[in-house]
């Protein structure tokens, strides 16, 4: 059972073509299932997918897909940091929303001018996210409270706290919309004209997202800290015997996950809406969980997953033109995640058997091999 969770959370590597085969099979399978659902509903699946693809390849849509994808990706990274260590930070959602509220309130107050304000907003968001997540980490270490439970409850508290902050402290009423004071123009994150043929700019935070993705990979795979984190995730008992302080790792990992979570709302806050209001996107933390599962905590895999997810979300409205309910997209997203999990499980079993066979074959095969090597 434990082994299955390890594989579910992508702590088990799949090498070579297998790593690519599994998600491709999964997406193909999801398309198949969705087609069946569409057929049952009396729609033409070919037409539906063509519409989605057409929409998704237009420059304007591509820019929008990238923009949403950036937020999804950062969210997935925040979740994945915990996943790699067996920590289920379900609280990414509350962490980013609370971080965004506080950061928006401060940014709107414009204590410092221009670029400094951007930096201040980002730093504050990171700190708030980290502190909020640290509560769950400390509860786990000192009181043995499962982080799953505590983060879910902290999500609810974050919602209440955020509403209170907006209505009592930071809020200004514009029309019907109660939100924080807008961040002044000089502290807006500039967009990048990345996609030709559309006036829609790509959010400047795409750079931050790429840097985060690289940093995630480097820290986990190339540093001692990352090694200890992965070792703890794979076998807590072996980590303890190897001198890893599991308590410290839990707190540090939660803090890191929360710090990254604090950044999720930043592309929206500094690059799109410039304030926190009722329209601020919610639920990104849960999207991040799905994408982390989809991308197997792999930085590239999660990027692909984030874009796929964002593509489906952005193009779902187009289906209504065909008289197809846009909720069909949610079915597809759900099926993709499930089939990825199943596909990886199957591929993993195949790989284990194949590798064991290979090892025993190579060892059973003549003992001469090493001797010949030594003689040469």
């Amino acid at each position, binding site marked *: 059972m434990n*082994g299955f969770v*390890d594989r579910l959370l992508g*702590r*088990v*590597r799949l090498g070579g073509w297998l790593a690519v085969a599994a998600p491709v099979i999964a997406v193909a399978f999801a398309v198949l299932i969705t087609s069946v659902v569409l057929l049952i509903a009396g729609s033409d699946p070919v037409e539906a997918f063509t519409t989605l693809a057409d929409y998704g390849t237009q420059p304007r849509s591509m820019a929008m897909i990238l923009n949403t994808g950036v937020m999804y990706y950062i969210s997935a990274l925040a979740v994945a940091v915990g996943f790699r260590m067996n920590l289920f930070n379900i609280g990414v959602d509350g962490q980013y929303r609370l971080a965004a509220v506080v950061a928006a309130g401060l940014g709107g107050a414009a204590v410092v001018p221009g670029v400094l304000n951007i930096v201040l907003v980002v730093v504050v968001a990171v700190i708030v996210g980290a502190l909020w997540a640290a509560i769950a980490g400390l509860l786990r270490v000192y009181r043995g409270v499962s982080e799953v439970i505590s983060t879910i409850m902290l999500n609810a508290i974050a919602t209440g706290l955020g509403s209170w902050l907006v209505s009592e402290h930071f809020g200004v009423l514009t029309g019907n919309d109660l939100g924080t004071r807008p961040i002044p123009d000089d502290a807006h994150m500039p967009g990048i004209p990345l996609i030709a043929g559309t006036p829609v700019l790509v959010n400047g935070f795409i750079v931050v997202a790429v840097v985060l993705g690289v940093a995630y990979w480097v820290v986990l*795979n*190339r*540093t*001692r*800290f*990352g*090694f*200890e984190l*992965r*070792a703890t995730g*794979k*076998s807590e*008992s*072996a980590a*303890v*015997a*190897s*001198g*890893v*302080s599991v308590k410290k790792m839990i707190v540090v990992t939660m803090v890191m996950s929360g710090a990254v979570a604090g950044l999720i709302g930043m592309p929206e806050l500094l690059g799109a809406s410039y304030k926190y209001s009722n329209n601020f996107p919610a639920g990104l933390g849960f999207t991040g969980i799905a994408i982390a599962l989809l991308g197997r905590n792999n930085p590239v895999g999660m990027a692909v997953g984030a874009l796929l997810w964002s593509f489906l979300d952005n193009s779902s409205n187009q289906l209504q033109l065909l008289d197809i309910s846009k909720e069909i997209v949610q079915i597809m997203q759900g099926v993709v995640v499930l089939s990825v999990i199943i596909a990886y499980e199957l591929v993993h079993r195949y790989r*284990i058997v194949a*590798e*064991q066979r*290979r*090892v025993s074959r*190579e*060892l059973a095969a003549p003992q001469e091999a090493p001797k010949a090597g030594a003689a040469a």
Partner: protein
Amino acid sequence: MKILYGMQRPDEGEIRVNGSPVGFHTPADAISAGIGMVHQHFMLADNLTVLENVVLGSEPRRGGLALDFAAARKKIKEISDAYGLGVRPDAQVEDLGVGDRQRVEILKVLYRGARILILDEPTAVLVPHEVDELFDNLRGLVREGLTILFISHKLDEVLRVADEITVIRRGTTVATVNPKDVTSRKLAELMVGSELPSPETRESTVTDVVALSVRDLTVRTGDGRPVVENVSFDIHRGEVLGIAGVEGNGQAELVEAIMGMRPCEAGALTLGGADISQWSTLRRRAGGIGYIPEDRHRHGLLLESPLWENRILGHQTRRPNVRGPWIDRAGARADTRRIVEEYDVRTPGIDVDAATLSGGNQQKLIVGREMSGDPVLLIASHPTRGVDIGAQAAIWDHLRTARAAGLAVLLISADLDELIGLSDTLKVILRGRIVADVDPANVTPEQLGSAMTGAGEGV
């Protein structure tokens, strides 16, 4: 035992129950064939009543859905009275003592219709008068026509309770004897094997320099019961100190305390003159303690990581594995290749997962890793458990070579040949205390076995 209870499949051979061959795939099969198992560690839910625990998983139904507690209570009463178990069905399990819990376990098995009971080390957790009560219960069960398979390391108990004794050593049946015909000494001899390893004419490499000094070490369980009590010893450079004892007498806790994985009270714990009692596990490792853990899968390896990452495990602060905060992949990989070569780890490469290696090769990798970085002290817990004979000989050789080079070794083993063959000094641990010092050069296995099992304390 696991095979009898359907938890594992046999590779060959057959099991017959009442003369007819059976094949078990799951414990449920074993239960339906009338075999019940009472585990060493109780499998009871503390916050439920005895009644609820007993029926858990085989609840009597009434009208399809409702639980028929009345019927269950009646049945439990009947069983309890028939075998004189004295179980109160409505007591809360958390309020019961150990002996009572054990009777609940037995009742649970009987409730499911078992006619053959397997008891795995049932006395390990009991105090003497509880043992007497258990034996009375067992005799009652036997009188009622049940069959009991009683597994124990304690010779005197086996002699007292059994009608027939089968001795198993290293997975094979050594002998089946009648308790009336054997003495406890004879049984000990059978248990540990009477042949000593060929006497080794090796020179002692023991020096006067103390590598590890342990004084008055006590480890307590969560409820304050001492599992290691006032243990003191010195290991010198170039010395192998063996700890003999039946498993579960505090060896694992002793090792974990020295490694800093478990809190302990110590008069003093010094490594090469430095007080290490407040050091973290990592610092102790970096300070020169190598550790071959008892359970390599749980404590020694990341099974689903490649060999070279396993080389880093436990050595993640030291060269050649790291440079500052960075993992030195090239260094770790090169050193893994060296270990694979020097310690003859049979593997197609260093990128395969540790899980794909055989137990012996996994262990050789661990031994190689723990010998790296010039350790001062090596804690070897059952270093050759579950490895093939070739790997065993290789590991012994490596230990001897390292000892000659001045390594201090704390050797914990259940294999008496290994202990006698490798140790310079041998201590016997029983119920968490060092009960005897023996000279490995002229100890007989009977003496050692008797001391270990408590059959004749004070050798």
